[in-house]
């Protein structure tokens, strides 16, 4: 689904709300992909955006529930699902993706990134998402703002 755009002024920013549940991640991915493709971003940049989007939304959907009070709060079962707002700004030299949610506070920028660096028998499956976000973005910031958690990820073009 495409975001609405101005008919006169070339729009460089898009914003959309999603429910903080796993089922919404593919919907958000298709929304992002449609914009990125239309804006003719490079395949490498689209990959980076998609990867960071999936990892960040997955964190929110898996660990953010329990505090959300937004319009999506009762989407799934009795545990309140967070509301997520994604903003994308495409500039001449960088693309910025801002993801806000009203779920449990979580500073993803301060969370330890785990990379596999030990023998296989000691490796735990999972937990690689933060390392991927850091590897595929140029800057990662977290603050308490907007809906609650605000993560800003920057990608150089």
């Amino acid at each position, binding site marked *: 689904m495409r975001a609405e755009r101005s008919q006169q002024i070339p729009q460089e920013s898009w914003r959309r709300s999603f429910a903080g549940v*796993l089922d919404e*991640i*593919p919907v958000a991915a298709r929304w992002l992909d449609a914009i990125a493709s239309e804006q003719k971003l490079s395949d490498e940049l689209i990959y980076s955006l998609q*990867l960071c989007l999936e990892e960040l939304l997955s964190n929110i959907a898996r660990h953010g529930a329990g505090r959300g009070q937004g319009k999506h709060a009762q989407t799934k079962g009795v545990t309140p699902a967070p509301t997520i707002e994604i903003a994308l700004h495409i500039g001449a030299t960088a693309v910025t993706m801002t993801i806000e949610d009203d779920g449990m506070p979580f500073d993803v920028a301060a969370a330890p990134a785990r990379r596999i660096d030990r023998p*296989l028998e000691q*490796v735990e499956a*999972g937990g690689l*998402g933060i*390392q*991927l976000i850091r590897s595929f973005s140029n800057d990662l910031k977290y603050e308490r703002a907007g809906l609650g958690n605000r993560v800003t990820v920057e990608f150089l073009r």
Partner: protein
Amino acid sequence: MKVDVLDQKNGITTIVMSGRMDIEGAPAADMKFSVVAGSKKHVVVDLSDVSFMASLGMRTLIVSVKTIASKGGSMALLNPQANVEKALKASGVDTVIPIVRDMAAAEQIFKG
């Protein structure tokens, strides 16, 4: 996500995948990986047609290789696309599941 399992004469099982190993694709692939990991010793995962891999897809690979290794077997990743390879290396997955360019290289790994 499409997943085909091919048993080859040299005792190697190849899992040929195509699509995205993301939050939709990885769960769809899990069952076939689980069956192969539980029954085969030398497994090549052909990633040449996998266009995207997130951490959930890597989890599928790690769970499988741990099962295979516990039986004395091993796994190799064949020909990942550039961005997928970058993600595999960034996470360190390549340190426990080697990336190879052809089947001959995989066979060398399986020979130990």
